[in-house]
């Protein structure tokens, strides 16, 4: 079985269009709810029959009720490694669901149901992980949509719920609301002004946590941070979201201030930095993923500061996704390794930047 992501609007990544609020700094907003079914062991402890039963029940529900219409389903246990990696690189499924965790192969009955805007991961750590992913900083709308999906599914399924502990989850860190909201935010200004450590520390003191580009356990690359709530119990969904929103708004403001400081105090240094990044991406013949990410961060800063006008944020977002190993392998029709992989990556980056520059007209580098 091969997957055809072209069936999905924007290949399941409508957030790439950078149409959301504050999308020059906040790339995307994600909210997820963890839900489990009554009377069935959690996926980690469930039998294969049980897992398949859960999947089929959810699939039947979506077909009959029309929730998630028009739904596309991916049965991960029938996909090959590359296809699962592609879905993971698109931030559509977690490492665990993709079966990419060490010593934890893809689980039977593991599935993704999606209509492009909303999605349900089936048989992840919990029976259901409902999620909503939107462009920019858009917590209210992301949760609003998700809440309706949750209510609709909850009417048709029996969720495990405890009067005191709330929604029950495999890991007690998710119990209660089961809600994790996160924003993917780009903070080069705070990194360059060395304010970032202070900001991140401040966030951890108010109950928020940060991760790298791929969520849990991933490293920070390209100055991208995922900020999210740390606790899920003892506060209402609205309070958790309000709190995160207030803090993110503040971080966005700090970032804007840091960028203003950089432009005021060291305009030549910044201009040089962002144009160098652009130059390297535009002409390099071999790029590692990490190098590409860091250079893309520089160019994104240049676009944000209105220094570089030859590139759209959409192209930058697209490059984030399509320069990853599985996407390159998919394009080339085979898995590549060094030295072919970084060469293919550089070729792709060059092509996209050239196309954008041609479309948007040449600039001479002076603002």
């Amino acid at each position: 079985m091969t997957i055809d992501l072209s069936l999905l609007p924007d290949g399941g990544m409508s957030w790439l269009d950078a149409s959301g609020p504050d999308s020059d700094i906040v790339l995307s907003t994600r909210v997820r709810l963890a839900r489990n079914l009554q009377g069935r062991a959690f996926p980690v402890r469930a039998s294969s029959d049980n897992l398949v039963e859960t999947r089929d029940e959810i699939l039947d529900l979506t077909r009959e009720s029309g929730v998630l219409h028009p739904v596309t389903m991916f049965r991960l246990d029938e996909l090959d490694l590359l296809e699962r990696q592609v879905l993971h690189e698109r931030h559509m499924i977690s490492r665990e669901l993709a079966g990419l965790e060490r010593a934890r192969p893809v689980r039977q009955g593991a599935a993704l149901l999606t209509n492009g805007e909303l999605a349900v991961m089936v048989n992840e750590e919990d029976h259901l992980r409902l999620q909503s992913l939107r462009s920019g900083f858009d917590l209210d709308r992301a949760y609003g949509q998700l809440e309706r999906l949750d209510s609709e599914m909850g009417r048709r399924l029996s969720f495990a719920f405890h009067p005191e502990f709330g929604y029950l989850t495999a890991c007690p860190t998710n119990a209660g609301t089961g809600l994790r909201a996160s924003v993917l935010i780009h903070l080069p200004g705070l990194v360059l002004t060395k304010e970032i450590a202070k900001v991140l520390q401040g966030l951890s003191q108010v109950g928020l946590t940060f991760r790298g580009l791929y969520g849990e356990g991933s490293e920070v690359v390209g100055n991208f941070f995922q900020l999210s709530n740390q606790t899920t119990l003892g506060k209402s969904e609205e309070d958790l979201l309000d709190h995160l929103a207030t803090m993110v708004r503040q971080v966005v403001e700090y970032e804007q201030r840091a960028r203003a400081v950089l432009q005021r105090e060291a305009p030549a240094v910044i201009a040089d930095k962002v144009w160098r990044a652009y130059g390297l991406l535009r002409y390099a013949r071999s790029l590692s993923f990490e190098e590409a990410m860091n250079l893309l961060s520089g160019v994104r800063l240049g676009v944000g500061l209105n220094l570089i006008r030859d590139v759209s944020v959409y192209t930058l977002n697209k490059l984030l996704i399509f320069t990853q190993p599985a996407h390159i392998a998919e394009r080339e029709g085979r898995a590549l390794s060094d030295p072919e992989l970084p060469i293919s990556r550089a070729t792709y980056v060059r092509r996209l930047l050239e196309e954008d520059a041609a479309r948007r007209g040449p600039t001479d580098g002076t603002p």
Partner: protein
Amino acid sequence: MQCDNCHERPAAIHLTQIVDNSVTTAHLCEQCASDKGINTNASVAKLPLAGFLGVTGKGVAAALPAGAEAEPCEFCGATLQDFRETGRLGCAHCYGHFEPQLRELLRRIHGSFHHVGKLYLDAEAIVADDVPKLLTELRDRLKRSIEAENFELAAELRDRIRALE
């Protein structure tokens, strides 16, 4: 030893950094350290435990009360030892079965063990004996959903409040 930065106050913080494969050690006084954004009275008590346990994974089980033991869960057969090893419970019944241990664990992780968020519909029957409290909570959520302009949620909440009244 004096502070490397101000050369006045005694050094109290010894910060070792590895940058580009070379190791540097800075000796700073508390004042200069905090000016540089190095927090010295790190995450004390105020924070829920999840902060320094790294939130998820096996670390979670470290928040179990010391020496906690219990019979395996009757529904799924999971033991507290399984939870210690994986950081995950086996099924929803585990919450009832290991309740004494989990209550403390939840409090340590979240700073609370009382869910105040969205109620699952069947749950209204469960807590129906506490209607006034539920109504207060629902009215509060209604107000906030209107403020957040989430009108569909507001309409649903309004219906639920009417049904209870």
